[in-house]
């Protein structure tokens, strides 16, 4: 179920909130668990069994790791961690990467793996990562093992974050699974964040996405302006879509008494690539840092090994985003840039005025998104047009620029802390009142966009 649909917002969420708050506190995890399974079943039907399987594996492995660790059988405990990791990765590998690897091998003439046409169960990249982090944390002593499968199941399936993150590590919400506070203040702040997220998704991401729709197929006569417009629109689309989803997840979490960590911190204000990755999809970068980069030795190794570590981490990060070569290249692109920045360019870059560093970073990011967004190797041709390989302007691009200029400006301003800074300057009483107006207004506006999306005039038989 997608958050920005009438069936989620008006039917599912209403029902879940009603049942949740009418239930006694001690059964609320059960309510959430069932509600979350329904949520997943709604979109994936039978594939919800995979999620249950993943839950069961990690629940039992967590208990085993804990038991053997306490009994001093460290090798067995380690083995249990390995077994959990292997089982999770095997699931992920099969459903997400089998066809990709099979097709890649076949293209070079190796055909022992058939292409199976496997359905990718939504959210599998998220929940396998979450459950893996649990057993590892139990082994490391960073988390206490969860004795209740219901609580653990609630954690894994928790619907706000199930299909698009953020990737919540078990240790971050272990306490909240046992006890969390519900209050009007918390609920209202959840509503505000949810509405910000929904507005980002419906008003900015979907709107600007229409420009990228036009340019990603590289229409005939695409001009330099058009190519840039498309790339910049996609840059904003992906940010507002993804961070909008994270905001909605955080907001929904708060409505249910949970507190998730921030997933984006104004990434497009970054002044270096390192800075960008500290601000973009934070829950993923910290996951890779904690469970891959550091175990590989991090930066406490010889420089050559460190570079290798980084390249592994970034190739995997790229591939995590999708089973396709362009994602891996996109990951490696950042790996290389980060190494360059840390080893060579960093000290020069620091001397530049910050707006230049910002501009340079954004250039890297925009080019990165072109690489990310074009799955069929269209990137070189697209970049060629961006950097002068086409007419400068075309009427279509000017039309789109004129049509979408207000949205582009809103997106640019919305990518900075400017608006929230302005909001903080308003005196407390005014702020509360404004918040009320904004919630009501954005509910109406978002509903209009939400409903219009489902409006499908059937014209065929009237021609």
């Amino acid at each position, binding site marked *: 179920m997608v958050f920005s*649909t*009438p*069936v989620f*917002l*008006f*039917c599912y*969420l*209403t*029902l879940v*909130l009603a049942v949740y708050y009418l239930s006694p506190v001690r059964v609320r995890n059960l309510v959430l668990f069932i509600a979350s399974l329904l949520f997943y079943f*709604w979109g994936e*039907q*039978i594939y919800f069994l995979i999620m249950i399987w993943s839950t069961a594996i990690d629940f039992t492995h967590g208990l085993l790791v804990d038991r053997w660790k306490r009994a001093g059988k460290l090798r067995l405990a380690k083995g249990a961690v390995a077994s959990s990791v292997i089982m999770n990765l095997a699931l992920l590998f099969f459903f997400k990467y089998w066809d990709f690897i099979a097709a890649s091998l076949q293209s070079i003439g190796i055909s022992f793996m058939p292409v199976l046409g496997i359905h990718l169960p939504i959210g599998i990249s998220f929940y396998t990562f979450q459950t893996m982090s649990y057993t590892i944390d139990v082994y490391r002593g960073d988390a206490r093992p969860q004795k209740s499968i219901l609580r653990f199941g609630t954690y894994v399936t928790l619907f706000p974050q199930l299909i698009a993150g953020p990737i919540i590590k078990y240790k971050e919400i272990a306490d909240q699974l046992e006890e969390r506070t519900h209050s*009007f*203040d918390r*609920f*209202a*702040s959840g*509503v*505000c964040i949810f*509405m910000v997220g929904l507005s980002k998704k419906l008003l900015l991401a979907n709107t600007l996405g229409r420009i990228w729709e*036009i340019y990603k197929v590289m229409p005939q006569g695409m001009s330099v302006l058009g190519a840039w417009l498309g790339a910049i629109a996609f840059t904003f689309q992906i940010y507002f879509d993804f961070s909008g989803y994270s905001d909605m997840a955080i907001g929904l979490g708060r409505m249910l008494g949970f507190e998730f960590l921030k997933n984006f911190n104004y990434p497009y204000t970054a002044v270096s690539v390192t800075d960008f990755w500290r601000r973009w999809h934070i829950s993923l970068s910290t996951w890779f840092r904690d469970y891959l980069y550091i175990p590989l030795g991090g930066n406490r190794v010889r420089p050559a090994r460190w570079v290798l570590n980084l390249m592994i981490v970034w190739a995997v990060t790229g591939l995590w985003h999708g089973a396709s070569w362009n994602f891996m290249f996109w990951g490696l692109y950042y790996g290389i840039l980060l190494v360059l920045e840390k080893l060579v360019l960093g000290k020069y870059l620091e001397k530049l005025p910050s707006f230049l560093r910002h501009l340079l970073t954004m250039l890297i990011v925009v080019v990165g998104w072109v690489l990310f967004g074009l799955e069929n190797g269209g990137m070189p041709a697209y970049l060629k047009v961006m950097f002068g390989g086409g007419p400068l302007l075309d*009427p*279509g*691009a*000017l*039309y*789109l620029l*004129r*049509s*979408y*200029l*207000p*949205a582009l400006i809103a997106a640019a301003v919305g990518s900075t802390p400017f608006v929230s800074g302005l909001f903080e300057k308003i005196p*407390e*009483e005014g702020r*509360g*009142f404004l*918040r*009320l107006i904004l*919630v*009501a207004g954005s*509910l*109406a*506006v978002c*509903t*209009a*966009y*939400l*409903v*219009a999306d*489902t*409006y*499908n*005039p*059937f*014209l065929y*038989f*009237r*021609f």
Partner: protein
Amino acid sequence: MKKIQNILITLIFVGFIGLMGLLTFLLPAKRFSENENRYLQEFPTKITVKKIMDGSFIEKFSDYASDHVPLRDTWVHMKAALERASGRRENAGVLLGEEDTLFMIQKDPDPGIYERNLKAVNKLTESCSVPVYFGLIPTAASVWKDRVPGGAITADEDYYIDLMNQGSKATALDVSGVLKEHAGEYIFYRTDHHWTSLGALYGTNLILEKLGLETIDPDSLNWTRVSDSFYGTSWSRSGAFWIPPDEIWTCVPEEGIEFTSWITGSPKISTVYHPEMLEKKDQYSYFLGGEQGLAVLKTDHQGPKVLLIRDSYADSLSPILAMRCSEVHMFDMRYNKMSVRDYIEENEIDYCVILYGFETYFTGSDIVLIGR
């Protein structure tokens, strides 16, 4: 203070989504959306394990929830107004042009479809015993270019129509050229993709000219306005509620035309004009009453028997064409799978005219049946 505000925010949010959710199911279900011209999803009452496991129940339930959002049309209108307010001159695939004119955006068509269609046209032309004429009607966006928002991205219809005319073995009818000569007149509806009766008259004259028949002087006809409240499909799709309605005119009396309609699937004598349709949203169905696989107009005139292979653009054209013909037969390939060639033989047709609007021809998959 802050506490009260937070309680209010909670109440507004929960109250709004709760009310929307409840009303979705409590308000009586609508069967048909006139604005969208389609049947809405019915509430799925048959629940079986199979339907739940294969997702079909879920899909229908979701569609029901989407189709029955309270005040649905109002939300759609609101979105259209917001889009306009934020500087956009298009919404939902419709361009908001000058002079309150709406244009359907045309995507560049798929060669796989139009090349197959052209082959079918040529096959019919070569294999049937009567002369075949072939005309494609551009949309208003191609004729009223000065009203289209500058730079708007829509297919170059003339390019594709020329491509078809060059490749066709039938005698081409330059509908686009004729309409452009009359671009200053009310030849297309502003809120609908169809041509007006005046546009259809110019189309008729082009056909008559090619068939060697006497053309019709618009001024010699008795023009009657039958509606001033026609909101067409581009209006519905765009949600641009502020655009004023169109007028519908007729120029040919229905007396003297015997009209056999297959609208129910079997032949029935009907009227050419359907005033009852003017009470409904889809007023264009005033002409001939709506879609039908086969329709035949017979008159007492001395003149040829013409077969039109057509879409709904011919609904308003056929009564005018009938002024110079003894019979006008109309085939809509979407609902009529008979062999065109056999029909021509059996009914002693003199001329065959293939006449399609841009979008039907370039996206239609049933047109290939012409060649059978």
